[in-house]
C-alpha cells in the first residue's frame, strides 16, 4: 500500500514537473548558474539551490555526525543506568520539537550571534542553517546509533574484557566496529532528514538563490525554494513545473540516501 502511494506521488511529480524540460534541457536545469524564475525571460538553473542544499547538509553532517556518534557511544556504553534514561528521554524530546520552533530559535538567537562573531552584514547564512539542522539530525543519529551499539552481542565485550582490553579499547575497537553498519544507517537517516527539512532552513539561511563563495554567505536550499515560491506560481505554468522538477530531484536524492541506509540497516541485522 505505502509503495503504491509512493509510486503515485512520484508519478504525480513527473506529470507536473517534466514539462519544464520541453523548454529547458535537463543539463541546463541542473547546471545553469542562475535561478531567476520571474524575470523576463525566466532562467531556471537550480545549481545555486543544489549547492545551497549540499553546503548546508554537509555542514550539518560535519557538526552532527561526530557529536551524535560520540553521544550514542556515551549513552550506550558509559553512562550509568539512570543518566542513560534521562539522556534518552532528552533525545526523544529534542526529536519532538517542531522544526519551525527550532528554526525560530535559530533565527532570533543563532543568527545575531553569528553576525556578531564573524562581523557579517547578516547572520542568516549557510553556517547558521548547518548548525540549526545539526540539532535536527542529532536525535535521529543518536537514537538509531544507540540502538545499533546496544545490539552488539555481550559476548564480544566479554571476550575483549577478558583479554585485558580496557573499557575504551573494547568500546572503540570492538563495539563501535561491530555496530558500524547500524551507525552508517543512523547517519544516512539523519542526513536524509536534513536534506528534506524545509521550514527551519528557510528561516535561518537567508534565502538568497546565489552560488555562495563561503559558508558565511546566505544560501537557499531546494526545499526552501519550493516552499517559498509555490504560492506565487500559476498552476500549470513554467515556474510551477520547474518547482515540481525540483521536487523530482529531491525525491531522487532522498530515495538514494534512504536506499543506502536500508542496505546498511539490513547488514546490521545480520
Amino acid at each position, binding site marked *: 500500500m505505502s509503495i503504491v502511494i509512493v509510486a503515485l506521488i512520484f508519478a504525480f511529480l513527473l506529470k507536473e514537473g517534466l514539462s519544464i524540460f520541453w523548454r529547458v534541457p535537463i543539463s541546463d536545469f541542473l547546471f545553469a548558474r542562475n535561478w531567476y524564475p520571474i524575470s523576463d525571460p525566466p532562467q531556471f538553473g537550480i545549481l545555486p539551490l543544489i549547492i545551497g542544499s549540499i553546503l548546508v547538509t554537509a555542514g550539518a553532517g560535519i557538526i552532527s555526525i561526530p557529536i551524535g556518534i560520540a553521544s550514542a557511544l556515551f549513552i550506550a556504553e558509559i553512562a550509568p543506568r539512570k543518566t542513560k534514561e534521562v539522556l534518552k528521554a532528552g533525545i526523544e524530546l529534542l526529536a519532538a520539537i517542531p522544526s519551525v520552533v527550532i528554526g525560530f530559535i535559530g533565527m532570533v538567537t543563532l543568527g545575531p550571534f553569528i553576525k556578531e562573531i564573524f562581523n557579517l552584514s547578516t547572520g542568516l547564512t549557510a553556517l547558521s542553517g548547518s548548525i540549526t539542522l545539526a540539532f535536527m539530525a542529532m536525535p535521529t543519529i543518536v537514537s538509531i546509533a544507540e540502538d545499533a551499539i546496544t545490539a552488539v*552481542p555481550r559476548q564480544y565485550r566479554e571476550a575483549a*574484557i577478558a*583479554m585485558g582490553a580496557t573499557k575504551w579499547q573494547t568500546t572503540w575497537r570492538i563495539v563501535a566496529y561491530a555496530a558500524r553498519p547500524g551507525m552508517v544507517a543512523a547517519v544516512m537517516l539523519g542526513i536524509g532528514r536534513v536534506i528534506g527539512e524545509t521550514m527551519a532552513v528557510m528561516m535561518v539561511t537567508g534565502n538568497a538563490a546565489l552560488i555562495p563563495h563561503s559558508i558565511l554567505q546566505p544560501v537557499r536550499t531546494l526545499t526552501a525554494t519550493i516552499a517559498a515560491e509555490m504560492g506565487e506560481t500559476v498552476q500549470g505554468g513554467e515556474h510551477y513545473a520547474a518547482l515540481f522538477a525540483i521536487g523530482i530531484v529531491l525525491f531522487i536524492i532522498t530515495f538514494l540516501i534512504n536506499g543506502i541506509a536500508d542496505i546498511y540497516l539490513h547488514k546490521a541485522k545480520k
Partner: protein
Amino acid sequence: MNTFVIETKHLDLFYDSFQALTDINLNIEEKKITALIGPSGCGKSTLLRVFNRMNDLIDGVRITGDVNVLGDNIFTPETDLIALRQKIGMVFQRPNPFPLSVYENIAFGLKIHRNQSKKEFTDIVKESLKSVILWDDLKDRLDNSALKLSLEQQQRLCIARVLTMKPQIILMDEPCSALDPIATLRIEELMQELKKNYTIVIVTHNMQQAARASDNTAFLYLGELVEYGETKHIYSSPKEKRTEDYLTGRFG
C-alpha cells in the same frame, strides 16, 4: 610438592542478597587440568569468573575471602586487572570471535597490549594458530571473516586468540557445549596438548568429559565445594554421598 597457581580461602560470593558461593577453599595445581563439575546454577561459572574478576562486570556482586592468583591477592585496590587478565585467558561457552578477520582476531591481544613490534605479529599469529592446529586450514584465509568458520574452528580460534597473550592459566567455561561430539573430542585432545605449557580450569556439564579430560575434579553443589581431588579417585571412590549421587546420575 605441587605448586598452586590459584588458591582461594573462605571465598564467599553474593549476588545482592543471594549467596552464590559459600566458603570455597580450592587450590589449583599448575599445568594440570582442573574440572569444575556440578548441576546447573551451582556456581561453577561464577567461581570461574572470580579468577579473572569477570564478575566485576555484574552489578551487585560482593566477594569476601581471599583469592590468590600466581601468588598475588587479586582483590586488592592495587590489583592491575589488565595485567591479571593477560595472565589468565578465558574461553567462553559459545565461540565468540570478534566480527573481524581471522588475522585481526588473533592480533587483537597484541594490538591492545603492544608488547611486540608489528613485524612480530605475523609470527605470533602463525605460531598461535599452529598450536591450536588451525594454521594449515586457515593460512590462506587469514583475511576472511572469522564468523564464517565452523563452530569448532571458531572455538579453536578463540583459544588461539588467548594464547597470543602468553597467559599462564586458561579458564574454559563449557568450551564444548556448542560443539558436536567429534569436535568436542578434538578440543579435548587440544587441551591435553596445551596442558604441557598452561594450567587449565574447565567448567563442564558433561561428567564424561571431566572424567576423560581432567586431572583434578571439583564438585560443586548449591554454591559449596563438596569434594575436590584427583579425578580418578573422585570417580572411582567418592567420599561424599552427594558426589556419588551426582556422578551416578541420581540428580543434576
